[in-house]
């Protein structure tokens, strides 16, 4: 499936911003099941400096600064991305979750060592005993890892209410867990925390969903903005993407933009401004079949 993606972020300020420094994660990567054929990040007004570099996780990051006063900043990313459904994985055929945990701890192969860094706390994912208890219910001894992961995802989907009013970026996971409400970002962080509490590796993925569903299929939640889900490491199968907001293994409807330990490392745009007064931000995402 091939998509044309247009992702626009606009900031309006009540007073001029005299300079700003920004970091944008707006370039889709090439992955085993994804190929980015084209990407262009347009910035208005034209930045004084703009360069791209790969970050620690391999994401292409655009750094740009403006040194002239401006009252409006618009960043638009245009991409042409081909996504292939990675195909089904039989959960029963995946290894027991304890063996995955032990393997991560002891195996120093390139693949496992790389995965191991997604086992530990990060800015937005801090473990608590309540999170550990919540996770444990889905992972009885000896259960194949993917079977447990799917059960956990189904529980989150079933027990948590999708509610954009309930949380913001700063809401800690304990609160999300206690109030059983949140948005895709919270559900992704929550399931990541559950995996990590068991010593399993999970990472955060930001990306897009196709806007218009295939004929006869429901429109997915999160399709009109950027979306977030997570990826769990399963030896033998690699990273498997799970979308707890929609309770499904990601296929060709999910377009990956970037991945890291949590939202903090992959937020689409992050910046520091001088001046500006009040600011208003609007985001629009358009994903069309190409």
């Amino acid at each position, binding site marked *: 499936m091939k998509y044309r993606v247009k992702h626009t972020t606009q900031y309006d300020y009540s007073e001029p911003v005299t300079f700003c420094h*920004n970091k944008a994660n707006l370039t889709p990567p090439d992955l085993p099941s994804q190929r980015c054929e084209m990407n262009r990040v347009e910035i208005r007004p034209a930045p004084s400096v703009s360069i791209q570099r790969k970050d620690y996780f391999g994401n292409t990051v655009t750094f740009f600064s403006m040194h002239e006063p401006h009252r409006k900043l618009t960043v638009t990313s245009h991409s042409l991305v081909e996504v292939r459904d990675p195909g089904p994985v039989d959960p029963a055929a995946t290894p027991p979750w304890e063996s995955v945990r032990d393997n991560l701890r002891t195996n120093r192969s390139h693949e496992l060592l790389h995965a191991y860094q997604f086992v530990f706390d990060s800015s937005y994912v801090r473990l608590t005993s309540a999170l550990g208890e919540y996770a444990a219910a889905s992972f009885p001894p000896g259960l194949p890892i993917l079977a447990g992961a799917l059960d956990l995802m189904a529980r989150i989907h079933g027990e948590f209410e999708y509610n954009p009013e309930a949380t913001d970026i700063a809401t800690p996971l304990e609160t999300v867990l206690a109030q059983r409400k949140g948005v895709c970002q919270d559900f992704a962080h929550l399931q990541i925390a559950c995996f990590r509490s068991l010593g399993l590796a999970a990472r955060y993925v930001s990306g897009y969903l196709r806007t218009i569903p295939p004929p006869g299929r429901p429109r997915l939640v999160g399709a009109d903005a950027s979306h977030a889900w997570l990826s769990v490491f399963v030896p033998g199968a690699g990273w498997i993407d799970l979308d707890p907001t929609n309770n499904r293994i990601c296929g060709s409807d999910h377009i990956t933009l970037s991945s890291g330990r949590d939202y903090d490392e992959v937020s689409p745009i992050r910046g*520091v*401004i001088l001046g500006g007064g009040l600011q208003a931000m609007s985001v629009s995402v358009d994903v069309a079949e190409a």
Partner: protein
Amino acid sequence: MGTAPTSQSDSSSPGLPAVDWKTDGAYDELYESAGTLRPHWRPLLDGIGRIGVAEFTDRWDEARRQLEDNGVTYNVYGDQRGTSRPWQLDPLPMLIPAAEWSRIEEGLSQRARLLELILQDLYGEQRLLKDNVLPPEIVFANPSFLRPCFGIDLPGRRWLQLYSCDLGRSPDGSWWVVADRTQSPSGSGYALENRIVISRAFQDIFRDCRVHRLASYFKTLRESLQALAPAHRDTPRVVLLTPGPFNETYFEHSYLARYLGFTLVEGADLTVRDNAVYLKTLEGLQPVDVILRRLDDTFCDPLELRGDSLLGVPGLVQAAQAGKVAIANALGTGLVETPALKPFLPALCQHLLGESLKLPSVATWWCGQEEALRYVLDHLGELVIKPAFPQAERGPVFGDRLSAAALAELADAIRARPFNYVAQESINLSAAPVWANGRLEPRHFAFRSHLVGTGADDYSVMPGGLTRVTASWDTLVVSMREGGGSKDTWILSETPVAPVSLLPPPGEALTLRRAGRDLPSRIADNLFWLGRYTARAEEVTRLLRGTLIRLTDETGQELRSELPVLVGAIRGLLDGTAPSPFAVPADKPEALETYVSHAIFDADGPTSLKGLLDALRQGAWTVRDRISVDSWRILNRLDHDLAPPRPGDEAPWGEVLIFLNEMIVHLAAFSGMAMESMTRAHGWRFLEMGRRLERASATASLLRCALVTVHDPEDPILSGVLEVADSSMTYRSRYMNVLQAVPLLDLLLVDESNPRSVAFQLALLSEHVDHLPRDEQQSARSTEQRLALDLLTRLRLADMTTLAQAGRPGSRHIRRAKLDVFLRDISEGLLALSDAVTQNYFSHSRPARQLTQRRIETLTTYASPDSL
């Protein structure tokens, strides 16, 4: 190791101080065995014996005064008045003999090389993890592993340009590393200040003891930092980045910046443009080549590191990645401070250097390993438990102080996330002598060493360092925060020591420099306000003195008619209200005296003299490195013992009057010092402009308060004004004892030869604004030039006889309406001038938002929500 006799003099040396000595099993630094000194202490103690205890004490008292005068402090965070905790220094240096030192030195530089190689690997190939030499948790679970700094191609390829290490000595006499300091090590400046104080106070003893000098270390430090510059190799600009005056070691930042000749800057003084770092100065942006940072890693860049920190420089990581600026130490070096690394250092040393580790670390178990975890759980009650990763906000826990229940809880927490914990043995640190009331007493001590990277993968060790001692013998916690003290550290040489100086050798041609081109705008702003506060304090003090003299003269008579005028002028200066005489209610004659007491002692903000002095000292703190040591001494003397009189005092204002008289002298001394010792660079001009603006407006305000309403008789008022304005003598020499408004106005308003007149201030202001840096392209006068010239011209053209004319003759309240309008316009013009200077020089945000705001810049960090 032995225990010396207690409470007796060493009988072999008659002039020696008494000792009160015990070591309780700790290594004894002073005695080899009972009554036998370790030989390397002999020259020092003989030296003290030679001058005698009395002389030693005298010299030490003098040196302590010097320390206080120099304002050497260690700030304690969270302490409101914490900017003034004095530095604790013991007169007895710690001594380390030559042979022992050379072993320590080798161990230190080996350790620095090792940590450097570890950093290079972990921020690059990570072979240590792949080859299973180091458990990956120590890196991956560590918040000090800064992924944005991964793979930076460093200028000079060195991560660890500076390295410090805390050493202690265990009961068997061997040295152990207690902690590694790798991101922005502090202490070298305090070590230097300690050395300067001690070597001056005990010059003769110091010379006889053959002590290695510290200057060579600082010379190497300066040269090696300059050598890091990626560009401008001939004249690199090096800045010292400080978190600001409230940081605990701010004294050291400003001290080192001055000693090394680097510009002291805060994050807001720097800006990243085109991936390079610039210093915001009065003359525009100046490129910065090297940053010596005293900010912790994560605070350095709100864009890529901690988003909630506004101490850093947005875009700094990107500038480092682009190779446009060198940072010492490189961002990310905090990684190897983790105590979890310590158990692996012996193996890492073999692996990376092919050598065995020369300086062992204090016994440390990282609970991420099963064997270590078992040991720790079995011995929990004897160990010190710490977070494995220093950023975790938990302090050390001493197992022997925990209840059984608390121990069980701790064990559970460790079992749940073992890799987050380390356990260490607590060392019974050795006993060093301190000077306590003329006797020698033991204290536990630890020693902080300092290293700087030199060319070719090597390190140079400071021959000395900062010795810290416990607050008492009964504690093992060595911390300045907890009230511990410090010592100079003498590394003894077996041969005579050649003096080294940071000054260039004779004969070397110096590049001539004129100061002032890189004055940060923030500093100019602070100097301007320092000038204003100093002048305001001086005016208020003079007014208060005049008031108190009149109040104490009172012997049951009516209030003297000039008192409401003087007090009204005080209130105008302190509260910023329009000047008018103080109205004394008929039924509350004590209201005036109550207000005077408030105006002196009330501590809330600068609406009292006390508050003003606090603001003045705070302001001076922010520009410490721009003020001469002597000026600083004067500022330090400003508020000794200012307490309100108690009710029922015989002469309630007597003491206060003495204080005010001293204040006038100190403030005049400070002004004089600035006049005589500051170079006429921009910094001086801003200090001066602040002072001139303040005095002009204070004088205008006093005249308005005193002369607009014509009193009958007017003599006492005119006489009071002349006294406060320090112009009585001049007036009398011109007009004898005939007091009249016209000649007084002439003298205080327009006589440009009188340094107290308004016109005198404006003539100077006009000259200062002409010399400010400005856009050369502009030929027209700047706003501040026009304003100053306009005010000066108005004064020059004014006719005093006209201004002094009073309306409504015969009425009880005769007003000089023209004078009122004239003086009001002058005051408003002065305000506009101050705003123009603020807007054009102190703000780099274009356009400035509000003229009245002092801090116009605000940084905001934002991130786009990823939800929905």
